[in-house]
């Protein structure tokens, strides 16, 4: 894990081309225009936090990056592979998914598998790693997210915060080049939010490229290299967290922030 992160760090200075590039990506749900010709690039090692009201299209945006949501026009490049509109990506779809990890709001752990097997399934079946090697990787990652002692349990036996950290370890086991987070703390009890954010913060400090949809504004301000505000399927404003949170230029951004920061 650490090796790949270091080499990625080296890439960041040498390779200025973005790891993710959305080019005029457009998506409709029937009459609803959920993404309006979105352009967005993410550099290697960059942490981009996407904020916006519910229904603004921010989750849809990151779900397009690993092809969980089809889009109708435009294109998305992820680490040199291209996702095409209307599900016409062919083989590059699975190739992208093996290199992009995702953490979901509802964790989506596999309830029929032990914690360890949740983490080892994809490395074994996709990468062909042996069970012993995969177990070693899993134990290391579970230790890293602080749940090494729960490896033989099943997901339902863990708290929400623990489950979400397992979900993080499961995604990291594929050694992703990019991590997507879709409201990773929204389904958690308040006292468990911190432990998940801590694990994500650590990952960001290790140099992982991350796209994060969240309502945790304090976390966004602290961890993000760039904050993107989405409204009505459009990127309204983006910039470094200090700028976007303290001096938002667009009135929609101001209205949104005044609502969420009051709480």
């Amino acid at each position, binding site marked *: 894990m650490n090796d790949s992160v270091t080499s990625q760090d080296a890439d960041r200075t040498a390779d200025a081309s973005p790891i993710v590039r959305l080019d005029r990506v457009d998506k409709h749900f029937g009459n609803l225009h959920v993404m309006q010709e979105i352009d967005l690039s993410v550099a290697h090692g960059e942490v981009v936090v996407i904020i916006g009201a519910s229904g603004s299209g921010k989750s849809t945006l990151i779900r397009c990056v690993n092809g*969980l949501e089809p889009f109708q026009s435009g294109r998305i490049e992820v680490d040199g592979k291209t996702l095409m509109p209307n599900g016409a990506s062919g083989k590059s779809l699975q190739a992208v998914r093996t290199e992009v990890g995702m953490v*979901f709001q509802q964790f*989506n752990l596999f309830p029929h598998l032990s914690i360890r097997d949740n983490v080892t399934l*994809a490395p074994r079946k996709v990468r062909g790693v042996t069970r012993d090697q995969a177990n070693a990787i899993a134990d290391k990652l579970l230790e890293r997210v602080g749940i090494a002692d729960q490896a033989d349990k*099943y997901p339902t036996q863990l708290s929400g915060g623990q489950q979400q950290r397992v979900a993080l370890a499961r995604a990291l086991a594929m050694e992703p080049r990019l991590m*997507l987070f879709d409201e990773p703390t929204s389904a958690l009890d308040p006292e468990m939010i911190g432990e998940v954010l801590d694990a994500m913060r650590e990952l960001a400090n290790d140099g992982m490229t991350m796209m994060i949809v969240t309502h945790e504004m304090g976390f966004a301000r602290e961890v993000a290299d760039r904050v993107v505000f989405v409204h009505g399927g459009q990127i309204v404003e983006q910039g470094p967290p200090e700028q976007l949170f303290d001096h938002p230029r667009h009135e929609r951004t101001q209205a949104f922030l005044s609502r969420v920061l009051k709480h």
Partner: protein
Amino acid sequence: MEFNFQFDWQAAIASLPFLLKGLPYTLLISFAGLAIGFLIGILFGLMRIGPTRWLRWPAVVYVEVFRGTPVLVQVLFIFYGLPTLLGGPINALTAGIAAIALNAGAYISEIVRGGVQSIERGQREAGLSLGLSPPQTFRYVIWPQALRRMIPALGNQGIVSIKDTSLFSVIGVGELVRQGQVYIANTFTALEVYFMIALLYLAITLSLSLALSLLERKGLVG
């Protein structure tokens, strides 16, 4: 009215050796039919919800035809009707197994469809997001969970099909009911014999229920 009939336990016990000759047929038709029906059910159930659109309508037609007609008519059609088409007789045992397989298969394909569709969408998304291919996601993530949820309904169908085999006395398979009818024709002990037959069916279905509840409990650990 005077009630002067006594249940004759000795006659009941005496019928057992003859009745038990039918047990292997009942079990064979039931379990061979159900095993094949399960495979048919998986095939058609998955065709119905699979990504290939043109495979859906044959699955719908199959389910509606075999769920919508009586299993008795199905077996009569196979045993008496099909030979006219095929130009040769069909063994009664084969006809019985085929009827159970086709009939149970129709119900099981609906069970399979419901089981697979009951798995939360997030499970599939998690599998795909990890780089598993859609077939891998199905095999390692969706199917094991769906199968577990299907157990109660499959048990139900198993019990229904086992009881359905009693109808096949009409085509002369020497299963439990047929054996009983032959025995009664000679001894006139209908009360005792049908009572014993009922007990034998209960023994089979209760064993199945028990086995499935053990399986389910073991499975629920996950």
